[in-house]
């Protein structure tokens, strides 16, 4: 009789234990044959990207769907291969896109070719979600022999490299500048060719703009809601302006006077009505800041050239400005004081960019590599611009197209020589999150001191020990 009651418990316990032995994070069924399905006549490939027609980075999605895919299919058809390529577009925040990809890849699914932020390469590689190209494609000579590499500058190639192995082909780079609204500047009596030489001069311009009603003088991204946009368009450009960077000699930035200098700048902007603290806390704050800039409600905004190409772009931008070329000015980001920037520079910037990687679990690794090369050929890269300019990964294309757009030419010739890249280390995203939290604290009204102390604690955890953090 007793067995009747005990049995289910025992059975469930046993089943559970059995199932548990299938352990966490197993790296899978070992090596796969890189030449699987190499001779298939019917091939299906999917391209995943955080862009969508009519929404986020619409131009890129449109190009992939309307030009790249049909051309590749036609190209393959000529070789007698029947290829179907699907585009899996996404239009969400970068963090959300990354979560989705991580979950896909951890379950050995997901698109065959994936566009990711260069800064995710490290942690994805460590997790085994992506593999070096030579492993996936199987033939080192085939990968390294691609003629496209010679056209991609070393610094840009780094975006797809982790521990000196190539994981993907980078898709161009960018640079950060200060954008300003010339119409508002005129009303406030500021020059149309404004170029601040120190943080003080940014704040002074802010004070002048503050006198205009309904105008937020300065937008420097802060807080946790904006995610990496806070780090890249806020903390890091300021930090290099104090003369240091986030990782020096293998040690992460801790609670140092220079970090406090950055947080103080946030305090000066958001504690004195020069910036809008509420906007930094809103769930859709970054999109809103774009809309406000386009509506002539924000005076100065720190962004990458993406802002020029895809946000206030008159035809396809998400916050179109019909008079962009006349109304939007741009200036180099100054160091805290002249000569005080990293490497003794007067002006500073930060750069990033994406890379396209091959999903190691693709059914068609050879064909995926073929598509990846096709995508990054000079002809396709040029066509992806569709008459517009962008700093592409390829030097040959850049020299041809950048001359037509003064702003991007400015970034290519003035910003890229002085820019810095984020360290391609797996801990970076955690450190970045801690920096975002520190700015959130300051914007939310806490003192620099409190925020900096809390930051020190989280960095020690994130970096994996006190000895990996540079303190004071």
């Amino acid at each position, binding site marked *: *009789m007793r*067995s*009747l009651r005990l*049995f*289910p418990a025992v*059975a*469930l316990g046993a*089943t*559970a234990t059995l*199932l*548990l032995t299938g352990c*966490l*994070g197993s*790296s899978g069924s070992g090596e796969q044959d890189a030449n699987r399905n190499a001779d298939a006549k019917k091939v299906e490939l999917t391209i995943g990207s955080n862009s969508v027609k009519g929404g986020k980075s619409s131009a890129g999605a449109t190009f992939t769907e309307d030009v790249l895919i049909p051309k590749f299919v036609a190209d393959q058809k000529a070789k007698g291969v029947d290829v179907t390529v699907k585009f899996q577009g996404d239009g969400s925040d970068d*963090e959300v896109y990354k*979560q989705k990809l*991580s*979950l896909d890849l*951890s379950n050995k699914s997901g698109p065959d070719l994936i566009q990711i932020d260069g800064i*995710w390469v490290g*942690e*994805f590689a*460590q*997790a*085994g*979600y992506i593999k070096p190209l030579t492993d996936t494609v199987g033939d080192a000579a085939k990968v390294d022999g691609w003629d496209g590499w010679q056209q991609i500058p070393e610094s840009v190639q780094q975006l797809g490299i982790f521990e000196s192995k190539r994981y993907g082909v980078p898709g161009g780079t960018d640079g950060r500048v200060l954008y300003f609204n010339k119409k508002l500047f005129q009303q406030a009596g500021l020059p149309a060719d404004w170029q601040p030489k120190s943080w003080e001069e940014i704040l002074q311009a802010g004070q002048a703009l503050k006198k205009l009603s309904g105008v937020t003088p300065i937008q420097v991204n802060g*807080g*946790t*809601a904006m995610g990496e946009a806070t780090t890249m368009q806020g903390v890091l450009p300021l930090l290099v302006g104090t003369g240091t960077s986030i990782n020096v000699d293998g040690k992460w930035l801790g609670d140092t006077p220079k970090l406090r200098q950055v947080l103080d700048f946030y305090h000066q902007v958001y504690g004195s009505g020069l910036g809008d603290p*509420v906007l930094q*806390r*809103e*769930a859709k704050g970054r999109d809103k800041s774009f809309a406000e800039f386009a509506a002539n409600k924000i005076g100065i905004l720190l962004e990458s050239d993406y802002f020029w190409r895809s946000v206030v772009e008159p035809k396809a931008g998400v916050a179109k400005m019909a008079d962009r070329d006349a109304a939007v000015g741009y200036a180099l980001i100054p160091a805290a004081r002249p000569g005080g920037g990293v490497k003794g520079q007067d002006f500073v910037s930060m750069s990033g960019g994406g890379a396209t990687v091959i999903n190691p679990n693709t059914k068609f690794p050879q064909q995926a590599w073929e598509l990846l090369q096709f995508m990054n050929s000079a002809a396709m890269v040029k066509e992806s611009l569709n008459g517009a300019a962008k700093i592409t990964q390829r030097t040959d294309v850049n020299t041809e197209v950048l001359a037509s757009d003064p702003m991007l030419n400015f970034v290519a010739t003035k910003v890229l020589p002085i820019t810095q890249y984020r360290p391609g280390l*797996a801990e970076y*995203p*955690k450190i970045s*999150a801690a920096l975002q939290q520190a700015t*959130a*604290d300051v914007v*939310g009204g806490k003192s620099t001191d409190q925020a900096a102390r809390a930051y020190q604690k989280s960095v020690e955890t994130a970096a994996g020990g006190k000895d990996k953090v540079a303190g004071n």
Partner: protein
Amino acid sequence: MTTVSPPAAGGGSNAGPASRPGRGGRGPARDVAGLGVGRALGFVAPALLLIGAFLVFPAIWTIYIGVTNYRLTGVEAVSPSVVGLANYTRALNDALFHNALWLTMLFVLGSAILGQNILGFALAWILRRARPAVRRTVEALTLLAWILPSTVVAYLWVAFFDRDTGTLNSILGTTGTAWLIDYPMVCLIVFNTWRGTAFSMMLYSSALQAVPPSQLESARMVGASGWQTLRDVVFPHIRGHVLTNTLLISLWTANDFSPFLLTKGGPNHESETVPVYIYNVALQGGELGYSSAISFLLLLANLLVSLVYLRLLRRRA
């Protein structure tokens, strides 16, 4: 195989409904249906398997992940190691987790125990004597708030609370008030009260029908006030319903994820209830191990609350 197995076949089967008290020991009659252990198990096995696969196994899995440093990305995603109770001790000292617990309590108290309960009962009590047309209209509207998909509802409420062009600001003439930023918890409590009242309303509507009209009549005859009638005549009849209702809605509210759709837990963790915190830790921060540990704590809290309520119910019975 339709015959009942003979009693001699083994200890597991008592033939027929008349169980012999001398053999089975204490307890009520066993094996009333005369199935025998094997067939009885056969009948319950599908259910047990489902419960095992979708309830017990995930729970045990959660406990297991909770003692590792498993992450979404990075080295620990491939080779997580067991860290013992480190995640739990970390949770005990985690100010953000304390914050989440406190906010969840506020959320449950404000929107479920008080908000939905009182509003649901008030609606049921008032609508009892309302004209059928009015009653049906109000009920339909309340139900609509309950059955619409969360994403749709959240979008409407985000638009309602919006700082620049929100409906609320237009009505009140308070342009520029960022409700979801300045008063996130109040917004969530109002939202969830609105969202979930339908259940309480329906439950109380049917419960009120169990109150004998003759007693209400007598109360009126002796001149009892409305409050006295409620307290002395109605509540004694529906106390069990109140307990059940409160148990269900507080558990649902404590585990509700829709706050995320309105505020994402922000600004700066000010509306980060436990489920939202778990999500943020797991997916934003990638710390699957730690978030599993917190999930398990939430599971324990749920069990504890259920036990207390069950205790109360049983005592009443």
